[in-house]
């Protein structure tokens, strides 16, 4: 590009080399990429602490962010995700882009008071998001 600039200086100045990575980044990795976000709630905020004895705080977490156009193995996404993206971009934009959703969870143990005054300790499946994926 330097030689081309010397030959015909009038041409619009090419972008300096260091911008190239920025230039490609917009295609490869969106700014706010799909990832796991922290969220903590206490049951007293929901006024449920009268019968949820434990835990006092609960962090369900959540997934948020844009899915890159070419997701590949990065999120453990199946090939279908790329196909869905191509459909959205090339064929029918009413088909939604792939979404950033939880891919794995962990359980939660809860101690609650039942309406009849008995007390129950229970372990619930899938109550805390631990990993995100694009689907």
């Amino acid at each position, binding site marked *: 590009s330097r030689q081309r600039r010397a030959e015909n200086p009038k041409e619009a100045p090419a972008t300096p080399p260091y911008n190239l990575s920025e230039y490609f980044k917009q295609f490869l990795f969106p700014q706010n990429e799909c990832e796991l976000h922290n969220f903590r709630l206490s049951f007293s905020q929901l006024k*449920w602490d*009268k019968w949820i004895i434990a835990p006092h705080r609960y962090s369900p977490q959540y997934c948020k962010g844009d899915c890159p156009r070419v997701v590949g193995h990065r999120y453990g996404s199946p090939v279908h995700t790329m196909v869905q993206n191509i459909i959205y971009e090339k064929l029918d934009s009413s088909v939604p882009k792939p979404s950033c959703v939880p891919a794995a969870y962990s*359980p939660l*143990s*809860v101690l609650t008071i039942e309406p009849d005054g*008995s*007390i*129950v300790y229970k*372990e*619930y499946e899938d109550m805390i998001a631990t990993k995100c994926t694009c689907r």
Partner: protein
Amino acid sequence: PRSRGRVVSDKTFGFLVAPEDNASELNPLLRLPKGMRRGYALLPPLLKVLSDRGHQNWENGAPRLQPDSRALRYMKRLYKMSATKEGIPKANKSHLYNTVRLFTPCSEGKHRHRDLMKGDVHPGDLLFNLDRVTALEHLLKSVLLYSFDTSVPVSSSVTCVCRLAAKEHDSSSQVCPSVSHSLAFNLHFEVRKRKWVEIDVTSFLQPLIATNRRNIHMAVNITCLVGDPQHSTKLENPFNMALVPPSLLLYLNDTSEQAYHRWNSLRHRGKSPVRPRQRNIPHVDPTGDGGRGNSQGKRA
């Protein structure tokens, strides 16, 4: 959302159905966007149950009953042993249960249960109402939990003889004269700092709970000798006063989908699911308290 040809299996949402009007009462945090409210609330059962209760401080018109403080203290201790501060179940493989229910005995005033009180109930009898146990919760172990009124001075060692008898109620809910199950056993323990004594009544209650019995009516006769059984012992009255009516503790395995199944998580971690084979499974203590029997027996 418009279900274009999507079949929604009622099995999945069966236990999550919340009629439209409930949705309007839901806590704003739980209110779903209009489109999602058609017919069912996609709430995990925990939040569904709690959000219902959030607006029902009264269960079917009756005031919410508060638990016994001693029982609450015991269950908080059990919670600390079973889960981390953030509420994650501890990966304690020997702890097979995913549900523990503690029932305090019904008393004349507190839980007047219609079909229980017709039969003749003696002062020492214990009446437990097990309505909260669901059909998908299978009994692993049951325990009578005695706590001591520590204000009563009791010397260090106690030996008790305990007699339990379960009373059957026939269809007219009269107590049958013949006692169908009875159990007597000795119990020896040190009463230093110990606040609780657990009496394993699994084999005793199994037949009753297996028949999905909603109400357990037990006659309990416990006599204790204070002091060392080898030397002079005397039947001391103060000890009997110290015994508070016991609670009933049920360690259960909830087989429903929303309950956490340890063998399931093993499978997710790429291990072959450790499903109990149907062969005669050696009785393992679900609480992992290191049951009796030598290691040979355990290996067998």
